[in-house]
């Protein structure tokens, strides 16, 4: 799925056009995104600090409580506190997102670098492979992986990772080719730098710098895709405190307990928006530094 590619295009494209109209100061949106990101990371690393309860503790007599002071996000069908569950689910969801992105980015960097650096036959082959992989658009590749290895968190993570890899590979390759043929690399050759030094000093840093942007944007998208798989019953399963699984459980009660679907979904959207905003912000910073 090349949402990532798209997201990256949006960020890196502006770089190519050399747009310089944006100011350097921190925008309100970026500040907010930073704060949310901080909250999410804290929730992932130290959930007990943010929500001290037990995400699996049931209390049937407190089931289906709407949002209130003791239960900020309400309770679910077993009386579990949704705020606690959503916060404790952050770790799971972020981990899935980060792992999937790592897999996709790792593979993408490998393929993209091979194609971009070696060129010729390797480039041709890798490009054909990518072309074929792109013929499995969207969730298709992920579903194929799940068909083969069966549903589950691990499969879903790998599936999302694999299906994002072609997009990353194409970006990395394009970036590499662009940097390699750029005027400053020629200038370095004219200065008398050895190919190895040019690679180490100019090509790799300039190719890999956007990886941070890609990774940030990618984690947001990966989380959306992974939760989609969980929602479809192909990823994490209840009662695991994972956002997609929680949403999936909540949809049963959508007519009477909207909060069960609303809050996990809100966190997914929040994460994706935050990732996009931060990715763009990092990109802008890198461009203007």
């Amino acid at each position, binding site marked *: 799925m090349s949402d990532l590619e798209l997201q990256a295009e949006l960020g890196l494209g502006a770089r190519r056009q050399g747009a310089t109209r944006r100011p350097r100061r921190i925008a309100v949106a970026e500040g907010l995104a930073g704060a949310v990101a901080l909250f999410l990371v804290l929730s992932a690393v130290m959930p007990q600090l943010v929500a001290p309860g037990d995400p*699996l*503790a*049931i209390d*049937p*007599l407190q*089931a*289906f409580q709407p949002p209130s002071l003791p239960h900020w996000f309400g309770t679910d*069908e*077993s*009386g579990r506190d949704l705020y606690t569950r959503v916060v404790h689910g952050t770790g799971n969801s972020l981990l899935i997102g980060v792992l999937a992105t790592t897999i996709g980015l790792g593979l993408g960097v490998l393929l993209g670098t091979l194609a971009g650096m070696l060129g010729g036959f390797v480039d041709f082959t890798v490009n054909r492979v990518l072309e074929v992989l792109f013929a499995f658009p969207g969730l298709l590749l992920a579903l194929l992986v799940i068909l083969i290895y*069966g*549903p589950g968190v691990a499969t879903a993570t790998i599936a999302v990772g694999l299906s994002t890899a072609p997009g990353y590979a194409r970006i990395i390759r394009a970036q590499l080719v662009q940097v390699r043929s750029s005027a400053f690399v020629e200038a370095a050759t004219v200065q008398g730098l050895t190919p190895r030094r040019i690679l180490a000093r100019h090509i790799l840093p300039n190719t890999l710098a956007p990886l941070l942007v890609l990774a940030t944007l990618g984690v947001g998208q990966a989380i959306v895709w992974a939760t989609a798989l969980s929602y479809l*019953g192909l990823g994490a*399963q*209840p*009662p695991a405190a994972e956002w997609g699984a929680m949403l999936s*459980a909540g*949809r*049963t*009660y*959508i*007519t*009477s*307990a909207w909060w069960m679907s609303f809050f996990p979904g809100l966190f997914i959207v929040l994460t994706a928006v935050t990732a996009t905003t931060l990715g763009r912000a990092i990109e802008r910073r890198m461009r203007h530094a």
Partner: protein
Amino acid sequence: MNTPAPTRRALVAVAALAVAGLVLTGCTAEPDAPATGKPVVGGTLTYASGDAEPDCLDPHVGGNYPQALTGTQFLESLVSRDTTGTIIPWLASEWSESDDGLAWEFTLRDDVYFSDGSPFDAAAVQANIAHLQDPATGSSTGYLALQKVTGTEAVSATVVRLTLAEPDSALLESLSQPWLAMESPEGLARGMEENCAAPVGTGPFVIKDWVKQDAITFVRNDTYDSPPADAGHEGPAYLEKIVWRFIPESASRYAALQAGEVDVIDNAQPDTIVQADKGDSIQHLDAPRPGAANRIELNSGTGPFTDPKVREAFIRSANVDDGVASLFQGTAKRSSSALSSAEALGVSRPKLFEYDPKAAGKLLDSAGWSETDADGYRTRDGKRLTVRFPVSTNQSIPAEQSLFEQIQATAKETGFDVKITPMDLSSWYGALGSGDYDAVSAPYTKVGPDVLRILYHSDGITPAPSGYFANHAQVNDPTLDELLTEAGRESDAGKRKALYTEAQDRILEGFYVLPLYDQQNHYLLGADVEGARALPTVSTPTFYDAWLSR
């Protein structure tokens, strides 16, 4: 390919003349108390099913509840049941049992034709029974129900005789079920593929069209005149057409009903039932399925549950009452019986299933599971007290899975490590077949207490031809086997009751099962649907008497 065993809520008929357990609640129009106004002829009723779309519409093949739901609309059985539990005539007008109980004669109506024009006669009944007993059909439910039938004979065109290997007091109930409905022999002869797509019956509606993954369209059978004896009228049905849709999302289903897009939904969620009961715009039809109650069976054949003390400890450690109350919001009652509350012979022993974590702890101590590890789980000889609990996501409604999670959470307090593994149906059967489970919940629908024989007779440990085995608790108790066999032959009501009571006591006191609640079967109907009812056999809805007041 063969059907995967008796899938959803399979049912086996039983002979006993159970007093009606079917309770119709809510505001549904009952057949003998028709709703206001004169029935309107015509109109299209849209039904939204939350059950899986059948692979095959012939309920002989396999035999699961979705097939029963659709089959009820266009197929008919030899006999039916009324709300008091009495067997009543349908395609057979009368019947008799020989003194030794080894032969039954059924006199058939002589004025009934299949919708393909072929006559319904003794040969047709023979062909149907042969079809059910043919291993190539891959029947599981119907096959099990006819286990004792050894032969058929057409005494005349309208009289058919069945010969039995041993007396079967459950035969009439068996034959009342949709899975043993009568189909056109000519239709059967077309081969499985064609017959699966559009079986031919004698019912009030005929299959017009089946767009897979979307809807089945039934149209009125205009020459129909063979309703069961308890029907509200005679002649063709009122409705012109039934559109049978499959909407797996329960919320979408309910919303569709609210929006008037569909007229009837099944598998209604507890919260929507509560909502519907509060207002006037939606009628509620509560028709619990007969047979076994929903329960968790504990595998006594291997693992920790070979020890009755551990079984009892597990049962006492599970807080089911609070869970049922909160999850089902009053739409389901806690059961403490092996049988559905629809079964008059059911024995309830609430005391055995009371939540008592202290007692559970002591029981584990005495069973040797006295150590506790760092995570709070009991151990014995360094091994953790783990309960493997595969759950079929296709078979359990969400509320039930939530209940399992709650049981998991409360049993943890006593020290059980319950490992719930959600699985697709095929893997779940695989896990069961290889014995990789300590606890399992498998719904089983059936009329009368004979279900106990299917579920707890040691014969049920060995798989049926389809590969399915029903004795998940792996109860292997010769005394119980004897009681159940005896009860299955006994036609004297009093003796039969005593035998079944004793058998149930043995099962319940042996702590093989943790009863949860009746098999839920809630229909919600739009306010303008009149005259719909659930057949008192296996609680499938019939729309023969139904009409739309709009």
